[in-house]
């Protein structure tokens, strides 16, 4: 930013009578925003091109008056004299110029806005109470300031198609569409999938996709986010919850190494939706549909709700102290190469650090995580589907994820490993058969969902999903980001770091950790990259902590541990198999 300030010329711009300075290249509408004046808009989106079609951002504009010497004439205040244009101008498509004048609150501007509001509403259904967009609709928002309480429109409205499935995840109500073309531009410019367009003409213009090529790209739901009205809705979310009841928690997506910043919308411990949160260092304003909808498993019927231990032939529910004592006893029974830990690239830094401490305490001989790859794209989706591979590297779990894994599996198969601690992974997917797992004297599993493996474990420790806990991860670019708790976990599930801390305590006595902040503090004291940081200091937008080697990601092989399993728990919207 500072560099820019030095190199870019600064322009004087008068906004509502007050002179400000802006760097060259600033859009007028953005300059107004920086000066504290919000100019209403529908079609303008700062991440997309400006077609200037909604006409809501009309303002009065003037340029510096040039004297005979082609230099700006200066007024008594020493500032340029402004030549005001007679006609209102849009502020979304023009950059500031030196000596420009802008009026955003003049009677003409107000009149323009009222006029455009009226035009937008005459053919728009006024059934706001049953519209899914209500509460986050920009038509509603600007109606408060520029709308009229009554309508002069005595004619029949133009009828258009309603409830159109534009694709597997997006539903369109054409009558609500104000033809701002944000979605079309998004598909062309960001998703690089030119599938949306307008058909017919004039007031009868209709947004649609060609029947033979629907809106089914992996970024389709971003069109719903940027739709300023209730035209495009998420087939998954629509009519599930009024948005004003949603509590929004800042978090990030854990479905791949990109770590798109998100808002998790919840009510009473139920997640209703995830939406992208702007972070230009990570995901701009977007996220992929795969990550966005990948939260249904949190409410799965297969959630593990209580700790269980193997008693005789059966897993029986027990209380936490019993389970921890049992786990610790089983772990302490073995030593060195007899113990293996399979951790996960989906664990937070705090959990990974505690895992490393536990491994050290027990003198564990084997430790690794399960690498996880899928097809990526050039937009946001990373081939590395583990959100915290870099955390596992930084915290010394593994130098190269998966490098030790085959050896661990062989050691389990050969019986050399007698105690296997699995954290959030499924060992049956690593080539270990159920029989081989059953042979293990102790199989301690910390997980959120039950699986064949947990059903055959010796100790089962139910833990938290990403939306239920606080913690940090390091994305593929080396950026430290923070998860915040959006919902409470079901049953007796416990936060992963607590389980790990208790295990360490049960094995080696007290360690002085009382909160996840304590974990971070201790971790930051030992890991130089994190020095001086705390969970609060990470902030909502994260901190870059790690230089990441530009080595290409390993090629995707479908045979590797695939991610299809989670997909089963996804909402019905996703059908693109």
């Amino acid at each position, binding site marked *: 930013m500072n560099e820019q300030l030095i190199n870019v010329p600064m322009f004087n711009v008068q906004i509502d009578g007050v002179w400000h300075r802006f760097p060259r290249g600033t859009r007028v509408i953005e300059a107004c925003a920086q000066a504290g004046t919000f100019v209403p808009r529908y079609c303008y989106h700062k991440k997309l091109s400006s077609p200037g079609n*909604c*006409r809501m951002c009309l303002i009065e504009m003037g340029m510096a008056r040039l004297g005979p010497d082609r230099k700006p004439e200066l007024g008594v205040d020493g500032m340029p004299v402004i030549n005001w244009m007679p*006609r209102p101008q849009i502020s979304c498509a023009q950059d500031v110029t030196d000596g420009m004048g802008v009026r955003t609150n003049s009677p003409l501007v107000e009149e323009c806005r009222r006029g455009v509001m009226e035009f937008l509403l*005459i053919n728009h259904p006024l059934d706001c109470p049953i519209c899914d967009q209500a509460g986050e609709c920009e038509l509603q928002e600007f109606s408060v300031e520029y709308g009229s309480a009554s309508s002069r429109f*005595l004619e*029949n409205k133009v009828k258009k198609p309603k409830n159109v499935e534009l694709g597997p995840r997006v539903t369109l109500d054409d009558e609500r569409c104000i033809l701002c073309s944000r979605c079309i531009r998004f598909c062309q410019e960001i998703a690089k999938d030119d599938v949306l367009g307008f058909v017919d*003409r*004039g007031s009868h213009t209709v947004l649609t996709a060609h029947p033979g090529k629907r809106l089914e790209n992996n970024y389709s739901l971003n069109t719903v986010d940027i739709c300023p009205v209730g035209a495009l809705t998420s087939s998954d979310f629509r009519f599930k919850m009024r948005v004003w009841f949603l509590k929004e928690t800042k978090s990030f997506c854990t479905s791949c190494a990109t770590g798109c910043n998100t808002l998790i919308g919840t009510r009473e411990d139920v997640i209703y939706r995830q939406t992208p949160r702007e972070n230009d260092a990570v995901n701009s304003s977007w996220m992929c549909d795969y990550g966005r909808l990948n939260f249904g498993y949190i409410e799965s019927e297969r959630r593990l709700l209580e700790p269980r231990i193997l008693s005789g032939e059966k897993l029986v529910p027990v209380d936490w102290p019993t389970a921890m004592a049992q786990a610790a006893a089983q772990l302490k029974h073995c030593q060195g190469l007899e113990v293996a830990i399979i951790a996960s690239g989906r664990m937070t830094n705090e959990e990974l650090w505690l895992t490393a401490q536990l491994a050290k305490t027990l003198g564990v001989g084997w430790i690794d995580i399960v690498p996880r790859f899928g097809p990526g794209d050039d937009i946001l989706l990373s081939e590395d589907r583990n959100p915290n591979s870099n955390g596992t590297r930084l915290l010394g779990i593994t130098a190269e994820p998966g490098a030790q894994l085959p050896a661990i599996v062989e050691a389990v198969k050969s019986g050399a490993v007698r105690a296997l601690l699995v954290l959030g992974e499924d060992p049956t997917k690593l080539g270990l058969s159920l029989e081989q797992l059953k042979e293990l004297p102790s199989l301690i599993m910390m997980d959120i969902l039950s699986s064949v493996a947990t059903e055959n474990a010796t100790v089962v420790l139910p833990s938290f999903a990403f939306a239920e806990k606080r913690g940090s991860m390091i994305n593929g670019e080396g950026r430290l980001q923070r998860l915040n708790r959006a919902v409470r976990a079901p049953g007796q599930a416990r936060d992963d770091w607590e389980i790990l801390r208790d295990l360490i305590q049960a094995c080696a006595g007290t360690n002085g950790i009382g909160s996840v902040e304590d974990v971070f503090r201790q971790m930051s004291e030992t890991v130089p990259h994190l020095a001086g940081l705390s969970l609060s200091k990470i902030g909502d937008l994260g901190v870059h902590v790690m230089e990441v080697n530009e080595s290409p990601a390993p090629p995707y092989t479908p045979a590797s541990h695939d991610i299809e399993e989670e997909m089963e728990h996804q909402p019905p919207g996703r059908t693109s198999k």
Partner: protein
Amino acid sequence: MVSTSTHVPAELEQKMDEAIARYPHDRQRSAAMPLLHLWQEHFGLINDEGVNWIAAKLGLQPINILELVTFYPMFRQGRAGKTHIRVCRTLTCAMGGSYRAMENLCAATGIVRNHDTNGMHSPVSVSADGNFSIEFVECLASCGTAPVCMVNDDLHEHVSPEHAANILTEPKSGLVRPAHPLEHRLVFKNIGRKDWTTGIDCYLKDGGYEQLRKAVTMAKTDIVNEVKTSGLRGRGGAGFPCGVKWSFIKQDERKPVYLICNADESEPGTFKDRYIIHEDPHQLLEGVLISCYALNARTAYIYIRGEFPEGAKILEHAIEEARAHNFLGMNILGSGFDVNVHVHRGAGAYICGEETGLIESLEGKRAYPRIKPPYFPAVLGLYMSPTIVNNVETLCHVKHIIAMGGAKYAQLGRTNNTGTRIVCVSGDVQRPGYFEIELGAVTMGQLIYDMAGGLKEGQTLKAVIPGGSSAKVLRADERFKLKEKQPDGSTIDREMSLFEIPMDFDSLAAAGSMAGSGGVIVLDDSRDMVWVLNNINEFYAHESCGQCTPCREGSLWMKKITDRMLLGGGVVQDPKTLTTVADNIAGRTICAFGEACAWPTQSFVQKFPEEFASRATKPAPPPLPPEYTSQELLEQEQIPTLPLTRDPGWEKAGASGMI
């Protein structure tokens, strides 16, 4: 290369490849409209397969093609009859009885018209036997011979509404008109001549292409300067000085420069370019070529409206003839200058007359005008390259400027209103037609009474729309205050009647209207101004591209209000609503269409308040539920009936006085 179950004959595909070759190799999308025309000519409609096939052929998405098919009304997704009839619906033809002609044509062909008005495009109705189909179309640019119809590709003029069916059997008729003594024919010198043909030999015998020969020996800047000196103002509507426009193009421009000839003549009331294209194509071509040379434009496109299929063929033939004489092609006339001219057909969208809309259309997109700034054509025009868009008549004048010299040309007409221009008179006059006049040398009165033969028997003048239907209407009994420039440079105010207004740019602007495209529509005292405005409003509602909010919503709203007023449902607020809606459009849209559709309403309501008031007498009804008419609600019995406190007086509120 493209798989489809419809067999695309090799011959057709070859034509398509030729069409694609007219555009830069990385701009194949431009060929979308030519390909759609070819497909429709061959298969009779553009079905889904056509959409997919063309999209694949051009490396586009099917939605890109579907967007075009639904935007341009000439593209049909359904099959038309063997004989397809287009009846012009716009003002002058409607005044001449085209609605009755439509009824009679339907009766004669056994067509039951589908009156679905909610869809934007007037639907095509087909007779049961599939032999005939009919549709209303907007202005066919032959208002001087109204009413007109097209039967397949042939224009039929002076259609008798009562005997409209005759057009199905009679050959089309031509119009021959000698020049009126008050005329000063320059561009129209050869129009209407009995001994004149469109062939190049005829043109050459008459001294054709001499100016091109002369131009290629001149320095490019000299030509631009001659045009500047001439004071030539654009004849398309805005009247922007042509030389100034040309000087926006840098002589050392590195990007390719394009010249586009705007032959999308479609402003209701205007029918001048039609005659140049159909009767004197080489004059236009010579003007285009001189302009290309002056601007260093190696490629020119003539964007001709889709409703001129014959004109397109004539121009294409003229281009081939000119190529054979080395007037265009490589190294023209040994000058070392290469230039190519291509014809690009529109498909029925008035908005393509707007220069940036035209450019978008030429790029193979919906004709959505571009925002200016930043997309000034001279900087970021066709393919984001510097582009000059000139009207047909303007380009023809260039030839005469080279012939006469800019200074001599500038002596024609008046200061700032130089040269001649073609004025088209239509409507309620004895002899409608085109007249080429020296600007300012003829008054409105002379034009209407001397040249156009005055009003019809027993009628008096009520109003004049002086510059195409978007110009503000002038009332016959209005008094105008015009500034008149004195020889010493001072100006004095002179009050004058409508008849005294000189026909030039500045005088008509001073009278509160505009010279526009030169289409003078005369309305006599038999005309109902609400009806006239409604006809104009329907045109603009139909032609609004729908891109920006005020015009998209406002144009249809105004049409619905005047519709209702005509049906007897006018409420007292209507005139005020009309005016404020128009006020909210004008000046707030992307392109000048906003003004074009607002000015008629603003001026009609302002200047004929008594007529609008007499049709707006009912108290405003209570607002209706937005989604349903009261009729629908009554039929569905979904709401309890309540007695009204007052009679809404509006037929939609139900005869029983109950809602």
